[in-house]
């Protein structure tokens, strides 16, 4: 058979062998953590920051002009990686500003839950290519919410228990949902939440505020004292995220 050229062409048909896209994404996430999933070029980061003010103005304009039309509604259903997603996010920011919720941890936690749901929708629609953007959005929203909780607790030590109790329920729901979504995507939740991205800083601040609060609180029950000692032990081991989890599931949070 076959001239050399024909043979080479036949060999080149093998270039149709490609890895499964879901596997490519999840393998990268396992290898480099979710930070890499949400990786953007520094130019894109710069562009994003630079364009923020204009995006907000654009979003307001679009929402005004699009009232009664389909664009605003379409933007509300946009998912990460889609053209109208920036409009949706800018509109959310604008609404948070109007409602005075910009620094409200509960509002930010709801936003993180929303980002997680977007990730879930993307996986259901098999839009694998958009998942890195969704990871980035979710991680950013979750970190912002935790930061707000930590700051609020620090500023209001007397209300630390109450704040964390309220935020804790939302955080717990997010964690459960996160495990489900990661499970669907075949990701190792532990591996993708390694704490070199800054979340640990917020978790650490939350646990420290908690320990301060309970130090001055009225006498704890036997179970409460035991749970507090456990939180301290986990905190001292440097596992701040786990210490928050333990607190949320313990008698201290009831």
């Amino acid at each position, binding site marked *: *058979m*076959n001239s*050399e050229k024909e*043979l*080479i062409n*036949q*060999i*080149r*048909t*093998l*270039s*149709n*062998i*490609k*890895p*499964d896209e879901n*596997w*490519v994404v999840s*393998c*990268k996430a*396992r*290898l*480099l*953590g979710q*930070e*890499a999933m949400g*990786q953007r070029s520094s130019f894109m980061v710069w562009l994003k920051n630079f364009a923020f003010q204009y995006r907000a103005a654009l979003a307001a304009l679009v929402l005004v002009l699009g009232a009664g039309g389909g664009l605003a509604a379409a933007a509300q259903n946009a998912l990460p990686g889609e053209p109208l997603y920036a409009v949706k996010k800018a509109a959310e920011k604008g609404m948070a500003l109007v409602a005075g919720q910009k620094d409200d941890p509960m509002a930010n936690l709801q936003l993180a839950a929303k980002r997680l749901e977007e990730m879930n929708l993307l996986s259901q629609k098999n839009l694998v290519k958009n998942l890195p953007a969704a990871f980035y959005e979710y991680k950013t929203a979750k970190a912002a919410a935790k930061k707000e909780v930590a700051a609020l607790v620090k500023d209001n030590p007397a209300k630390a228990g109450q704040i964390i109790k309220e935020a804790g329920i939302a955080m717990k729901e997010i964690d459960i949902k996160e495990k489900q979504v990661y499970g669907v995507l075949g990701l190792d939740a532990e591996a993708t939440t390694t704490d*070199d991205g800054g979340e640990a800083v917020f978790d650490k601040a939350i646990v420290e505020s908690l320990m301060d609060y309970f130090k001055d609180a009225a006498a704890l029950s036997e179970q409460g004292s035991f749970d507090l000692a456990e939180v301290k032990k986990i905190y001292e081991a440097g596992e701040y995220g786990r210490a928050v989890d333990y607190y949320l599931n313990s008698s201290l949070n009831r």
Partner: protein
Amino acid sequence: MEKAREQFGRIYDDHVEKIYRFVFLRVNSKEIAQDITSETFAKVWASFQKQPEAIANPRAFLYKTAKNLVVDHYRAKAKNQTALPENWEDRLADPKIDLEGKAVLASDMDNVRRAMAHLNEDYQNAIIWRYLDDLPIKEVSHLLDRSEDATRVLLHRAMKELRTKLS
């Protein structure tokens, strides 16, 4: 660390497809190809974190690592399995190994893939690197640890052998 992660993320994106294909063609199994490809990138990432400047040519480093892991895979397999199964030929033809969907099932592709599986390791590697991945002779010779002339001769013999298997 963040910079290294970003750099390696790009290396991953640029090479994952070719490394997977190279491994898949050597092991004829989607699951094993995924495992070996993951291990390849994990090993190279570990080296990259320690000494990024030592990896001047990431592509060559990845191919060499993948090649060694494929060899390890067959060695481990040989330990657990003293002889090839009697139905080796049938197993190669088993439609279950056509894991890449309809495209892989296309007859040309399937024929050449099965014929390649009968070539020796160096012949397979040389053909994949030179004609499928379009690497220059110099890089193929480096990966094969041979001179450029010896690599040309080897490629000529590999193609002759492949033609025979196909006919």
